């Protein structure tokens, strides 16, 4: 074949442009002759010498890939980007593939087919049974069985019922719901209409945060289009079932992601939670039975109706079925949004899908479930990701945030960061959350500033326990998780801060010092860049940092070309 290729290249005058390299083997078990063409890296298999002229003609001259010999490495048409192994796309199946502002694109992907099936062939009981059998659990974080929730709302007395979609995604760094609403809004709408039919609701609301203007815009376009062709409104698809949907926009409060606070906000009241029971399924929006689910939960519904409960239940673990989207962020190579089957291990998520830790550093911890989740250290890497396992490890599934931290992260500082967030977002209705989170933050601030005292750890532990058990809603009940989990897994770091006034990860500013070592060439760059003129020294002589004046901004370390500035603690 090599001869045939050389001849062909010479014949077409390409020999100067194309370099032919011989290699031992490309595939493990080659099917016929094969070759790889660079720079594209196109891999052809099953070739014979007779095929060479054709390949040269098509590929080298016309720049067209010859499909029939192509090895199966190229992504197929329905894969969005580079295929990430271990990903399974159910909720995100249409994202990046269809035009979210065109309902026809969604219909072409079998959109609203499930709704048609439900309205023409299924009773509400059958719909609920199928959803229950699928094992789908709430994707907002608590993990309650979706079918059961619908059953409660359906069984609740009363003629007027409501359905709500919780799209108030407030966790820092999480954008699972935004992706679905922006890229495939009709899947959520379809899921909501099916749910409304199942519980007997005639009116629904999507509560979306104001920080997602594009999601709101596309939702409204989608609603308008669905209404125009009779998929919303009176007598949907010619049946005697009528339903309509509206978008309500949040005003920026994190606590409005909590269901009772969310409903209060829709009613036009101040967004504060109230005690449960009564649960929304019995007494929800305007005192009427209400079903409230997360965006991702609804987006799963059309697929469960179309492909069956057994198909859905075939993915995941015994108690946690299906797939889950996660927003991986932090010190990980490929940050972004992924969808994986539940039961996958944290290691697979971080290393196989996430591509491992940035800059070849070591893994330190992963925080799952947003600001109310716990930080899990490396012994938990092989733990399966499902509702029960995460709960027992002291973290939560949450709505799917996942923050990966490398060895340079100070866990006390991280706990402080999340506490700062929850403390700020506490609505203030109940005392444990309002006052307790603030007390915790004050102690953490003190520890990070080097003023930690003996007994601080014990006080923190007590506060965490009290806030957890006495707070009104999920925000307060979950807020101590980052502190509790870091105290449990990284206690030594707290002790180093308190007893030795040392930050082992060299992060906390008041506990670190910068020093110039012998590698210094006396180039003056650091001295010139220091904002407070704390560095002195003659040209070509070792420079010195005055620790009193230094504000620990770290600029000298960044600008030094000789790694002569070091941090110590």
């Amino acid at each position, binding site marked *: 074949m090599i001869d045939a290729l050389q001849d062909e290249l010479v014949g077409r005058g390409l020999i100067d442009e194309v370099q032919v390299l011989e290699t031992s083997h490309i595939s493990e078990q080659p099917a016929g002759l094969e070759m790889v063409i*660079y*720079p*594209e*890296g196109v891999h052809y298999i099953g070739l014979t010498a007779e095929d060479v002229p054709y390949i040269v003609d098509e590929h080298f001259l*016309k*720049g*067209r*890939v010859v*499909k029939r010999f*192509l090895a199966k*490495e*190229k*992504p*197929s*048409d329905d894969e*969005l*980007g*580079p*295929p990430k192994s271990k990903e399974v796309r159910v909720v*995100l199946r249409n*994202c*990046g*593939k*269809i*035009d*979210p*502002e065109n309902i*026809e694109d969604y*219909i*072409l992907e079998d959109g*609203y*087919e499930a709704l*048609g*099936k439900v*309205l*023409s062939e299924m009773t509400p009981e059958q719909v609920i049974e199928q959803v229950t059998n699928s094992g789908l659990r709430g994707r907002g974080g608590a993990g309650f069985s979706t079918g059961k929730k619908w059953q409660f709302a359906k069984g609740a007395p009363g003629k007027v019922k409501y359905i709500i979609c919780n799209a108030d995604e407030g966790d820092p760094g999480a*954008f699972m719901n*935004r*992706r679905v609403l*922006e*890229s*495939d809004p009709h899947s959520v709408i379809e899921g909501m209409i099916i749910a409304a039919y199942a519980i007997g609701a005639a009116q629904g609301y999507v509560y979306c945060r104001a920080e*997602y203007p*594009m999601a709101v815009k*596309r939702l409204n376009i989608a609603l308008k289009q669905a209404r*125009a*062709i*009779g*998929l919303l409104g009176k007598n949907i*698809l*010619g049946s005697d079932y009528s339903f309509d949907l509206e978008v309500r926009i949040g005003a920026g409060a994190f606590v409005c992601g909590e269901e009772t606070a969310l409903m209060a906000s829709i009613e036009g009241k101040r967004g504060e939670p109230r005690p449960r029971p009564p649960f929304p399924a019995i007494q929800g929006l305007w005192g009427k039975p209400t079903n409230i689910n997360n965006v991702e939960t609804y987006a799963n519904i059309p697929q469960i109706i179309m492909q069956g409960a057994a198909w859905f239940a075939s993915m995941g673990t015994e108690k946690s079925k299906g797939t889950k989207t996660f927003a991986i962020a932090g010190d990980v190579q*490929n*940050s*972004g*949004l*992924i969808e994986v089957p539940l039961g996958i291990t944290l290691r697979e998520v971080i290393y196989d899908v996430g591509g491992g830790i940035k800059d070849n550093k070591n893994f330190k911890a992963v925080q799952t479930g947003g600001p109310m989740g716990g930080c899990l250290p490396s012994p938990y890497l092989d733990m399966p990701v499902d509702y029960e396992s995460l709960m027992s490890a002291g973290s939560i599934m949450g709505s799917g945030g996942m923050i990966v931290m490398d060895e340079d992260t100070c866990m006390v500082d991280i706990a402080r960061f999340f506490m700062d967030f929850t403390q700020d977002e506490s609505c203030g209705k109940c005392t444990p959350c309002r006052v307790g989170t603030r007390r915790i933050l004050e102690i953490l601030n003190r520890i990070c500033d080097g003023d930690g005292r003996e007994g601080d750890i014990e006080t923190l532990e007590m506060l965490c326990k009290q806030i957890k058990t006495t707070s009104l809603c999920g925000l307060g009940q979950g807020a101590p998780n980052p502190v509790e989990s870091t105290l449990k897994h990284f206690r030594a770091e707290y002790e180093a801060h308190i007893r030795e006034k040392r930050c082992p990860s060299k992060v906390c500013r008041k506990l670190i010092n910068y020093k110039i070592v012998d590698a210094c060439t006396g180039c003056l760059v650091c001295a010139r860049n220091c904002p407070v003129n704390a560095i002195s020294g003659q040209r070509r002589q070792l420079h010195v940092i005055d620790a009193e004046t230094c504000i620990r901004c770290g600029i000298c370390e960044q600008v030094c070309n000789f790694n002569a500035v070091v941090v110590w603690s």
Partner: protein
Amino acid sequence: MAIKSLDELRKLKEQALKRRETTQSTGRVQVIVPMGTPGIAAGARETLKAILESIETENLSDVIVRQTGNSGLDEWEPIVQVMVGDQPKVTYGKVSAERAKRIMKEHVIGEKIVAELVVPQ
């Protein structure tokens, strides 16, 4: 036009499919630009504008430009995907307006993949 039954929905789907097929058969090349928040934040609007400009200045009549939602490759936004004929979709990453023009020239017009801009797999 309101749809009155599942059959009518399916009819609508068939019509949509036909429409798509006719538009696609008139287009030699499809250019897809994901326009979600991450894409737009990274500059997908400028990229799209550059693509449309280049279609205008080069007078291309057989190129279809489509928008979609988020591509799932936030780190590589703005993304541009090019499909020439029935060849596999090629995904380009970090496509600035300038790079978009280059892709239009070399891949869309010249039918030669701009290998160095392809998102690595």
